[in-house]
């Protein structure tokens, strides 16, 4: 009869073998050859829904244009390929990817943890989430480090009525004593109130903030990222080489300042 120590080691061994088998199964998935095909054909098929300017839209000539279009073109160039756009309704993007109608989705796509068995996501390349904004003249060295409860206590905050910024502001009212929310019919009016000194802070999404900052250079300062709405690209889970190449290309674009240049161009 086996001693309990022997039985214990046998149990550990069985568990280790099971884990190793699982690892081999997952790690041993063959690459589906997408990157190789892209390099051979010189074409990277990019799926997007062209109804989200300034990220993707159709110009007057029916051509795809926008931030994501430029991003996809730049990614393809780093793979020694050109981007071929396949316009698909947002609901159909993952199906198009699964059906191998496209190689990558670049379409203001949000990370979805429920899809990670079938899809590989890149790191985020843009965050369109809500940001707390203050007039640049009111921001000090310590503003960014203060707790929101302290930063916003007794303050007036302007938002676009009904927007996600409005929701954030209402939530913050529960945290910051005396916080007053001023809702305006448009983001532009909320901005005007902020710049006129009728509000102490405002909440805008990442794209609106970029646009407002361009039209009012030096007047606004983003103090806190309140929500996360990060955009990522997606490839099939088995297109591992392509995913790695795209991640590397994104990193190169970020380091070279190309992503920032695209933001300046489009926002």
């Amino acid at each position, binding site marked *: 009869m086996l001693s309990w120590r022997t039985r214990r080691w046998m149990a550990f061994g069985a568990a280790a073998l099971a884990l190793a088998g699982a690892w081999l199964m997952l790690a041993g998935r063959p690459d589906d050859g997408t990157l190789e095909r892209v390099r051979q054909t010189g074409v990277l098929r990019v799926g997007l829904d062209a109804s*989200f*300017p*300034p990220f993707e839209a159709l110009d007057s000539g029916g051509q795809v244009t926008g931030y994501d279009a430029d991003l996809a073109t730049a990614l393809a160039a780093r793979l020694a390929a050109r981007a071929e756009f396949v316009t698909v309704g947002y609901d159909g993007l993952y199906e198009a990817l699964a059906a191998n109608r496209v190689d990558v989705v670049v379409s203001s796509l949000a990370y979805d943890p429920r899809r990670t068995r079938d899809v590989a996501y890149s790191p985020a390349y843009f965050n369109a989430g809500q940001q707390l904004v203050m007039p640049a003249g009111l921001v000090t060295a310590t503003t960014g480090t203060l707790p929101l409860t302290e930063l916003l206590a007794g303050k007036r905050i302007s938002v676009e009525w009904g927007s996600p910024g409005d*929701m954030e502001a209402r939530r913050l009212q529960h945290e910051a004593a005396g916080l007053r929310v001023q809702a305006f019919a448009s983001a532009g009016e909320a901005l005007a109130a902020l710049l006129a000194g009728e509000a102490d802070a405002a909440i805008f999404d990442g*794209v609106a903030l970029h646009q407002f900052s361009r039209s009012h250079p030096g007047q606004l300062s983003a103090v806190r990222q309140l929500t996360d709405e990060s955009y990522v690209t997606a490839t099939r889970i088995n297109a591992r080489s392509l995913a790695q190449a795209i991640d590397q290309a994104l990193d190169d674009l970020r380091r070279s300042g190309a992503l920032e240049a695209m933001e300046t161009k489009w926002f």
Partner: protein
Amino acid sequence: MRPLRWLLPVLLASGLILTASLPPPQIELGPQQTVVTINPKLGVHTRLTDEVEAIKIKLTLQMVREMGARWIVEYFPWAYLEPVAGIFDWAHADLVVDHANRQGLAVIARLGMVPGWARPPDSPSSYLSTDHYPDFGRFVSAFAAHFAGRVRHLIIWNEPNLALEWGFQPISPEDYSQLLALVYRQAKVANPGVQVLAGALAPALAEPGSEWGMDDLEYLRRMYAAGASASFDALAVHAYGWLYPADDPPQPGVVNFRRVELLRQLMVEQGDSRKSIFITEGGWNDHPRWTRAVTPAERIRYTLQAYQLAQGWDWCQAVALWAFRYPWAAGSYLDYFTFVTPEFEPKPIYWEVQKYALGE
């Protein structure tokens, strides 16, 4: 000591097994509620199909009632309820319907989605071939019988005038009318009091012969030509406003909220003036960048306007706008149709509709 060293892991394992085998906690229905609202036609499309937690189902429906909505449209997929031919699983549907009824809500049930056993492999779940029409009819009959006294209105299929919803088969109002006739007969036998809603038609401006869809006005005309009038008690319609205010005048070449009046006119011309229309999807979207979206302020205004307009339509029984809440975020413009976040946080539009419903 040796026996004790084995006892602890055994006790722990036994505890885990016992806990895992216990049934989930029962969520009480609670006392019977009544919806307080100045507009008895006010409704929303809930999305509880994939909401597995009873507490979240109850909370969703409670919030619907508290918003002032009396009607809900909910999707009851055939594929979920009859996963194996002849074997029905009503548990989740019972949960949704019973909680809805207890909150004082009237349920309009959308029926569709073909189970795998009733369609070819690798076909979309909207693919229903004519040889399986009797299976769908049998399912509708079973649904009508099971929910007699609890669900009075059934929508037969969804947007059959769109290829995507018709299994990418050639769009055929005639085939749909045939399906409707079979289903109508069987549903009425199972539950004579049930109301069968045809449609729901999607607002569509498709070119004649388009492989993607058929104009909803043309589709309805051809349904009548195929004799469908005898096979439905009311018409379900989807009324999206896109970029237009709710009171934008109806025109055949425009998709706006009042397009529903054109469908109504067609029904009257066909002698169906006594039948009602139910708006079972519709509304506006306020994504900041989607090309079919309006501003959040406009969405609120147009939504309230839509509910008010419908009050004046004596032929319209309900306006159930899309969509109250999703179980999880879609991460796209779709999220900007909702009234409440997946975390049950009411959006400003929820509060504005509530104020309206309370007469404030």
